[in-house]
């Protein structure tokens, strides 16, 4: 009986060692800042396939090409150009984003090829759907660390990777669809391996993001396949990256709204 009690005490102690962050562990704010600042190349170019499946099992595929440019001056972090390559009814549509430092909203332009028009898009919530998929812009580009308050819950392995588990609550809940989010952050690559969002109504699970594949390309950890499921609408999206290239010297002029569609 005594030995069982001792064993239980040892197990509780070991469990504590495994889950409670140690003194060397960075704080939740530091981790989220590291995630936001992780180097993604001076520029990058990637082809992305976005597959979205609705509750009835119908799947729609969108193919886009994304170019990004690390600007990091005049309060602008990145300049990102997204061009639709398929399907035909959206081909050549282009979307340009100048990602500003928080809390300034991003600047966005849309090129409508049929009208040969570049129009400025009003600053919107970065959490609106990306071309009808379950992904939003923040899934692809990251959510600013300063937008939330963070709490480190524990360390735990997930899919064979050691992760920090952090709970974040939005500082401005009125502009987001969730009440809190829990993220699993890979301690090596600083990628978000999993994210759970909970709704505002009852705190029920709303959406789950999972990183399915990442690889080092040109020594940069790169997300290659990820899925996101809207649990309540049973709609799922998956992105698959291919032909990822870093530091190819994309000219800054490619990210000028006046050059869209040219």
């Amino acid at each position, binding site marked *: 009986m005594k030995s069982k009690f001792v064993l239980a005490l040892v197990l509780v102690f070991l469990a504590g060692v495994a889950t409670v962050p140690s003194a060397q562990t960075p704080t939740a704010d530091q981790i989220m800042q590291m995630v936001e600042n992780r180097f993604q190349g001076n520029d990058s170019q990637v082809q992305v396939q976005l597959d979205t499946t609705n509750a009835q099992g119908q799947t729609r595929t969108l193919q886009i090409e994304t170019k990004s440019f690390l600007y990091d001056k005049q309060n602008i972090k990145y300049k990102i150009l997204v061009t639709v390559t398929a399907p035909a*009814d*959206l081909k050549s*549509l282009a*979307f340009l984003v100048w990602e500003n430092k928080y809390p300034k909203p991003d600047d*966005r332009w*849309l090129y*409508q*090829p*049929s*009208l*040969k*028009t570049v*129009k400025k*898009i*009003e600053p*919107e919530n970065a959490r*609106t*759907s990306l*071309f*009808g998929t379950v992904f939003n812009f923040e899934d692809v580009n990251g959510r600013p660390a300063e937008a939330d308050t963070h709490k480190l819950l524990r360390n735990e392995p997930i899919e064979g990777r050691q992760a920090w588990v952090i709970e974040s609550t939005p500082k401005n809940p009125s502009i987001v669809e969730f009440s809190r989010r829990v993220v699993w952050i890979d301690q090596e690559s600083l990628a978000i391996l999993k994210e759970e969002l909970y709704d505002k109504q009852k705190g029920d699970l709303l959406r789950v993001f999972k990183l399915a594949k990442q690889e080092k390309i040109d020594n940069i950890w790169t997300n290659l396949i990820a899925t996101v499921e809207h649990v309540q609408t049973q709609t799922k999206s998956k992105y698959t990256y291919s032909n990822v290239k870093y530091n190819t010297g994309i000219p800054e002029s490619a990210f000028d709204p006046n050059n869209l569609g040219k």
Partner: protein
Amino acid sequence: MKYEYALKLILLAVFLTLAASSGAFAEPQKLETLVIDETKTLEESVCVEFLARGLQTSGLFELEALSQIPREPNPSGKPYDLTVIVPEKILQVWLVTADIPARLPDFLQRDLLLIKEIVAQIYNGSDCTLRQAVDTSDDLAPALYAAVLLQNGWLQSPR
């Protein structure tokens, strides 16, 4: 025999010249169409692109675009046959013509019906927020803008 052949060739050439000048073999003339896209969000603006693509695919419309309804006279002096306005906040698509559809030529009436079909296909689906196409006899707004655009030289009386 040679003369007969040459005469046939000449007659054919004369016939083709006359036919071409009378427009017998010409493609149906496209309607000069001004699309005024007042939408501001990404989702709505993408839907306007769908609409423009639908119009273009029909082969009946030559499109130009503005981002807001012009209040000043048309500087180009080149009026349009038709204006399609996608307002920002009202969930309609306004088909603005110089007169009510019943008094327009048949081809223009047919084209308006086609636009209504295209609008229904795009805005009744799951991708775009529901909008209804209304013309100058359906609603006051397109009728009002028809008067303004006509007066300022943006819209022309039916050909």
